């Protein structure tokens, strides 16, 4: 991992005008970056070896720093900032040297909690949002079933009313066996869950793209450095134009996705519905995650960090709305015009 350490800050951060981030975004990113470097990354290899994710400890650290609630209301411990700050945090989370931890953190901040923060009652926000923001509890989101998932509307898990409670049965990410939940735990209006979840998906998809940018950049840099040092046929691997050009092309793809993300975020901030842009960005990001990790694996002879991300980033074409669903959304939008 010596190369990765050396590359930690090799990619230049432009100090001039950024289309999305200002000095406060940068200050927040620097704080999170320091935490990741000092307390997360040094432990990642060991957690991998032991197949361990100390979610409670890690989440407490993130919670203390305050990164779970950047766009959540201040009354419940959030910072009350706009979504661009969530994206800035997500992008920096990508500095963690594995996929699981940023993903878990983003579920906590921007996948499981947006609807709760937007539509939940004061009681629900105190009970569930506040401890989520401090990192005391670990949240999750379940939208997959044996019979449904991509087709969200076909979900069968149901809740039956019984006095003041709901009894929930069936199988989602977890198996519900007559689970009793008080009626007042319903987020927002009864029957509106589908709509809330659909709108929550936009947040989820955009931060998923953001989280991919740093690891992909790191992989390309790592592979380039490897190719510079590795000698074959009497010269550095990087001297082969195909290797050099492929790396360049990967950088083009990465920057294109980055621009698409920032554009989607800016439009969202101005109040637009960005379902199509978010779907496009999610689709493309997941696809280049596969091609970049695959190409870099080839060029780096199964390099350590590259192979880890080859494994971890494959998820993005499947989760958070699989590629096929993204294409379905996009094609239906244009065909219906």
């Amino acid at each position: 991992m010596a190369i990765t350490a050396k590359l930690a800050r090799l990619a230049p951060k432009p100090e001039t005008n950024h289309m999305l981030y200002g000095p406060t975004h940068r200050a927040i990113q620097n704080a999170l970056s320091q935490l990741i470097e000092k307390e997360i990354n040094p432990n990642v290899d060991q957690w991998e070896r032991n197949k361990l994710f100390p979610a409670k400890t890690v989440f407490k650290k993130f919670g203390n720093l305050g990164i779970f609630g950047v766009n959540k209301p201040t009354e419940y411990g959030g910072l009350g900032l706009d979504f661009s700050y969530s994206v800035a945090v997500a992008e920096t989370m990508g500095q963690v040297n594995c996929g699981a931890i940023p993903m878990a953190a983003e579920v906590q901040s921007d996948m499981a909690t947006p609807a709760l923060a937007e539509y939940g009652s004061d009681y629900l926000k105190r009970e569930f949002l506040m401890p989520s923001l401090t990192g005391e509890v670990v949240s999750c989101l379940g939208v997959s079933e044996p019979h449904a998932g991509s087709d969200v509307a076909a979900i069968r898990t149901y809740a039956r009313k019984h006095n003041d409670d709901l009894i929930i049965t069936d199988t989602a990410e977890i198996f519900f066996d007559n689970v009793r939940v008080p009626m007042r735990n319903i987020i927002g209006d009864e029957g509106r869950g589908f709509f809330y979840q659909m709108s929550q998906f936009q947040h989820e998809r955009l931060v998923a793209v953001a989280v991919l940018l740093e690891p992909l950049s790191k992989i390309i840099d790592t592979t380039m450095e490897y190719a510079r040092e590795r000698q074959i046929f009497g010269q550095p691997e990087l001297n082969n134009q195909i290797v050099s050009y492929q790396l360049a092309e990967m950088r083009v793809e990465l920057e294109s996705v980055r621009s698409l993300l920032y554009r989607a975020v800016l439009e969202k901030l101005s109040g637009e519905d960005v379902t199509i842009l978010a779907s496009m960005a999610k689709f493309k990001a997941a696809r280049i995650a596969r091609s970049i990790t695959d190409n870099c694996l080839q060029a780096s002879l199964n390099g350590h960090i590259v192979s880890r991300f080859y494994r971890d980033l494959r998820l993005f074409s499947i989760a958070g709305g699989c590629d096929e669903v993204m294409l379905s959304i996009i094609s239906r939008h244009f065909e219906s015009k």
Partner: protein
Amino acid sequence: MRVLVGVKRVIDFAVKVRVKPDKTSVVTDNVPHSMNPFDEIALEEAVKLKEANHAKEIVAFSLGPAKNQEILRTALAKGADKAIHLEVDDATYQKVEPFHVAQAIAKLAKDEKFDLVFLGKQAIDDDANQTGQLVAGFLNWPQATFASKVETEGTSHLKVTREIDGGLETIKVKLPAVLTADLRLNEPRYATLPNIMKAKKKPIDKKTPKDLGLDLTSQTEVLEVSEPPTRKGGEFVEDVPTLVKKLKEKGAL
């Protein structure tokens, strides 16, 4: 006790530094910068003194171009109460030396009646290790450099453990004094996000070299900046006797 903490904006320690083709200096454009790590440690100690009610106010100070504001905001987010920015343009900043910075700090310390000046022991870009000592000289104040532990002795003195070549040395200094922080003094806190937001409301006073009567005449001239010679590859030997022979051949034994 009022504490003045000096913070310098330096190239981030993890960056691979490159020398400019004209060999006048290193490349700083578009390179990540951050607060000098030893200054972070000094700031942390000052904030701890305030939290223990030994200090009343912590003021962060930086001499440099507009970008130094970011470092001062970070200092405010980590616990400084206010900041002073002595602003100079990029060209002037290239020629600033510890001698000038020390003059500025000394003037501020005297004019605004600080009881303690706390700096990092050295900056990681020039490794000069001069500013703290110069400030003490200008002010004729006691100094305790390379501090690895700081304790109060009543309200008039500080007991400081210093890291020196032979080990550790503990001295007592009478306030007002100058301290410089060494690596093992403490583990700096993170700037939490709520504190980053609160820091935006804390004041940053702007000053010019003229305000402090600062003379920026160069004391030194940089002739050339170049990279160290590239490390030559080593070689493997089969056994210990061969190793010993090679070391003798190279004059290492």
